[in-house]
């Protein structure tokens, strides 16, 4: 079932299969698992927010299928898993989703390198919201390294794009059908 809304995919060379909701759900659960992984030492500072990155990917590429609700619910799940204030990530992910959907046509026009810059800006905005909420609730600015995960996540953007597209490439020759 092809839908008229998927012209954004045509900007790349290959034509992708339509995305099933189950596939989206699976990638989001996998991202949550990666977020829950145990890291120690300097990896704690470096580890990117996989859930945010995955949500951002779907927000940019499938803005009609992945909207605010999954972002909001996953934000709540992340808040519980981290033991942070209830709702801070829900708020941050909602705003992130808004920017992703609002910018999705623009981002799709750029090459990978410029897309990474857009992703970096959106992720930094997301982190600034979390920071604002926590400082308002009495927290203290943890230091410049607080923003390192967003840079790492932006560097992972090409990898994410590649991984999510592997399963969506049509393997058959369309003329055979």
């Amino acid at each position: 079932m092809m839908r008229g809304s998927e012209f954004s995919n045509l900007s790349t060379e290959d034509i992708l299969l339509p995305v099933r909701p189950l596939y989206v759900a699976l990638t989001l659960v996998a991202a949550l698992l990666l977020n829950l992984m145990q890291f120690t030492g300097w990896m704690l500072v470096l580890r990117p927010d996989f859930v945010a990155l995955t949500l951002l990917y779907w927000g940019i590429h499938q803005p009609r299928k992945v909207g605010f609700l999954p972002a909001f619910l996953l934000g709540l799940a992340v808040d519980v898993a981290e033991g942070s204030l209830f709702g801070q990530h829900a708020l941050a992910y909602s705003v992130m989703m808004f920017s992703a959907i609002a910018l999705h046509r623009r981002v799709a026009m750029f090459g990978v390198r410029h897309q990474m810059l857009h992703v970096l800006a959106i992720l930094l905005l997301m982190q600034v919201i979390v920071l604002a909420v926590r400082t308002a609730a009495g927290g203290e600015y943890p230091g410049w390294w607080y923003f390192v995960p967003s840079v790492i996540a932006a560097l992972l953007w090409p990898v994410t794009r590649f991984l999510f597209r592997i399963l969506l490439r049509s393997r058959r020759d369309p003329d055979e059908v």
Partner: protein
Amino acid sequence: MQYTPPPFFKRGPSLLARLSFFALLSLILLYADARFHYMEGMRKAIGVVLYPLQRIVDVPGEVASQIGSFFVSQSYLQRENEHLARENFLNAGLLQTQQELIAENRHLRELLDMKARAGPTSVAAEIIYFGRDPFSRKVIVDKGSSHKVEEGAAVIDDTGLIGQVSRAFPWTAEIALITDREQVVPVQVVKNGLRATVFGTGYDGALDLRFMPVNADIEIGDVLVTSGIDGVFPAGLPVAVVSNIERNAAYPFARITCTPAAGVNRHRQVLVLSRLAPLPEYPPAAQHKKAKPRKSRRDG
């Protein structure tokens, strides 16, 4: 092939409307959680849903450590065995004298008609993962309220206090480490019994001993243990060792930095102690004099 009409005909509420709805909802949740702690029930429900995921994530690490322990070299085991045997021998000697002391102590307490000190029971737990929230120092362990882990209970490792249970979910529990910025531990200097409070700094390996006068009798290397007067932490658990003292006569208090006695960030196995029996009520005459509720009692 099915064809749906172009998207500009049916789009639902506008993007900005949807954003405002979800942002408002999260702000309400945030306010309710930060000010009134209303969200604990919902947190528990989500915690139960997350539990299987947390276990799945733990599997690769467990398998790896099992494979690793299978290939441990014999010389390492021998060395460890020798070390443990020596330690066991030393401990046995200490234990014998301690048995005698315990009996004597009980006897003396009976003579003096004092309340018996109840030792806390403990639950062994394993850390599943470190919280990624950069604003707090928290770990999640694999035992929860179904294993009799209570909120507010002390958590120790083999060398001392590492934290306090801040939230108990049915099968997991969240532990605020003593290095967390909001964590306060009432302590006592072993050398002279001076009472003080230790505050977390938010950084690994550093604690603040606050509100000690500049002329306080305290030196680098002094050991701090829990005083037990708060009714939360059992008395006598090692907390920290004083590592640095700055005495500046311009300020009323000395700046004292300590290093935690326990491996706050090193071990995977921890021991969750049970809550102590509640302290007796304040005497009624002292009640109206109480100026402010103490901030350190986070469990109310």
